[in-house]
């Protein structure tokens, strides 16, 4: 095998047989996705004939929706589960980080858990000892290092766990969605640390829903759709392809399953297609179907930008808006003058019972629409990512002219 190659994957497939026992072992998202499509067969191909090569020192992002096969790929690369067909060659020591704090035990102290977690992640005890001070320093929990971690706040727990992981020094690092935890400041610190790792010439494979983080960290990415590798290219290309792939769902969403939940979502833009002209009336129509009877059903709408960030407060229906009991109910949300800036947006919709806090259904990343600003005049033109929203404003001037004294 070529010395330049870190990982070579050829014709890799993974099949899950969905029996009663194995349903537990699949991630919930995967199982749910499967059931809605063809609930009669008991086989599910999480990966279909995937081949690619990763060069040493590359930092690769993996993009795809839930159930696209990202996590399965990482599990196979980390040897947690074996492939059904295909072959993988790996050149270099692999450390995988599919979770922060694997093996942490609540009864043990921070110090003990550093050793425990470090060896679980593949460090030797000697290695952990030599990095111990750095780890504690990075975590910022020095004061509590000899306290059992069950007394830690969740923030402290995550900090300590990530600090251990951040000090791994493998040649190939595989990371799954672990940055979703922790506060913003600490996330920033972790991203910085990862950037540093990648600059040291290590190979990094990185899965995240945070497209922004992928754009910042990786130079190339792989797009997965339903277990198939769709494209392996520059990250910027992949991200725009990923956005476009949402368009195939179009600006409406339809779920014909007879179950409690969101059955139909339509976005009514100013042009009637997925293009919406800035500032014009925008409507979101949502239909929900209920077999059972719920009281005080509430609905929340989030508008998500290209980086996966929610850009307005969740719009939650009021309690007195009595729109459904059982049967089909429709609710329409109208924006008279939306100020969304140039860009592509998607919707996340959540449904729940307000009185009991029961979560009924959530749909994410649907109804992409694009806001254009050709109808708004600007002296300098509009640039993507230069703003997130446009505010109406007016100018006032107050003049005081100095009298000429000479």
């Amino acid at each position, binding site marked *: 095998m070529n010395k330049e190659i870190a990982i070579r994957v050829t014709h890799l497939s993974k099949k899950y047989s969905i029996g009663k026992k194995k349903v537990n072992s699949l991630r919930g998202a995967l199982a749910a996705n499967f059931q809605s499509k063809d609930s009669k067969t008991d086989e599910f191909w999480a990966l279909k004939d995937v081949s690619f090569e990763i060069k040493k020192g590359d930092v690769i992002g993996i993009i795809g929706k839930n159930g696209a096969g990202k996590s399965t790929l990482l599990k196979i690369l980390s040897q*947690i589960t*074996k492939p059904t*067909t295909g072959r993988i*060659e*790996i050149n270099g020591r692999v450390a995988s980080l599919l*979770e922060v704090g694997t093996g942490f035990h609540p*009864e043990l102290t921070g110090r003990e858990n550093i050793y425990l977690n470090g060896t*679980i992640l593949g460090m030797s005890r000697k290695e952990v000892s*030599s990095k111990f001070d750095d780890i504690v320093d990075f975590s910022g929990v020095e004061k509590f290092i000899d306290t059992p971690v069950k007394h830690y706040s969740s923030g402290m727990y995550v900090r300590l766990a990530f600090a251990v992981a951040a000090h791994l020094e493998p040649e190939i690092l595989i990371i799954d969605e672990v940055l979703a935890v922790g506060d913003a400041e600490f996330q920033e610190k972790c991203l910085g640390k990862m950037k540093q790792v990648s600059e040291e010439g290590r190979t990094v494979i990185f899965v995240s829903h945070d497209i922004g983080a992928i754009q910042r960290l990786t130079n190339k990415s792989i797009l997965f759709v339903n277990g198939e590798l769709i494209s392996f290219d520059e990250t910027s290309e992949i991200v725009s392809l990923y956005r476009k792939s949402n368009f195939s769902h179009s600006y409406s969403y339809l779920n014909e399953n007879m179950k409690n939940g969101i059955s139909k979502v339509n976005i009514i833009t100013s042009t009637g297609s997925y293009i919406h002209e800035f500032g014009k009336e925008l409507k979101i129509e949502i239909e929900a179907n209920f077999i059972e009877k719920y009281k005080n059903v509430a609905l929340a709408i989030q508008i998500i930008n290209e980086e996966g960030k929610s850009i307005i407060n969740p719009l939650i229906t009021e309690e007195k808006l009595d729109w459904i009991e059982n049967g089909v109910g429709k609710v329409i949300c109208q924006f008279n003058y939306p100020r969304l800036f140039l860009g592509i947006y998607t919707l996340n919709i959540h449904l729940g019972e307000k009185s009991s806090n029961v979560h009924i259904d959530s749909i994410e990343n649907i109804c992409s629409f694009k806001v254009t600003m050709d109808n708004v005049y600007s002296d300098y033109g509009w640039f993507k990512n230069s703003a997130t929203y446009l505010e109406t404003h007016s100018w006032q001037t107050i003049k005081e002219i100095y009298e000429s004294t000479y």
Partner: protein
Amino acid sequence: MPNKTELLMSEHHKIIDASHSSIIPDFKELYRYKDLFITLTWRDFRVRYAQTTIGMLWALLQPVVTLLILSLVFGKFVGVKTEVPYLLFAMTGMTIWTYFSYVMTNSGASIIASQGMIKKIYFPRLIIPLSKAAVGLIDLGISLLIMIFLMIFYGIVPSSNVWLAPVFLLFGMLAALAVGIWLSALTVRYRDFQHVVPFMVQIGLYITPIAYPADFAMQQLPKWAATLYYLNPIAGVVQGFRWSIFGGEAPGSLMYVSFAMIIVLFVSGLFYFRKVEDDMADYV
């Protein structure tokens, strides 16, 4: 430090091939993960008596109470006659049995109990039942101490065969490990074994010559049933261990049935474990 480790790492080359999966247990790899084995053993030991008021005393209390009950029921009520004081006689059996049942109980559920780790990280899964067997050595040590204390108390001098005692102990550990490996692998596929194990522990106490001499059973059983009796791997070990300490008549050749059983169970266990190891993350 990092430079040295990096040098070692760069020689690492791994091939995962769906069509050529190895059926032979990889001991070299197991050795590479020795630090994880040490850490997990130490964790289980640390956690075992955490938050209990009397802590380590439990490890002493459990065998002592069982011993007292056995000597009350079998020594006093039933009146089992033994060549050495009954308390000491039962204790030699208990020493092996306590360890065996500890490993059997804890290994059986060990893989499922560690599913959080198994789904998120790779390591040779065999480390989990191995670490349970290592934690049990504490109990074995404590039992041996009680036994030695009783021997001094009764003024019993060990027989000239005592040099064989460590060999029988070793076979006892091997038997425990063999059954532990089998049960841990089986429990992943068939959860039913979770219910079978406590049952086995309960029955095992009676079908093993712990509270009574093996001769008792031999006198009552026909020849074929006697062979069956020794298919219990721990039966021969208990009898041999007792003989190595107290001397007397050497155990019959049926003892070797137990030993052969241990070897068969251990080797087949390693292979069966290897076979299901790759899929464990999908099953737990």
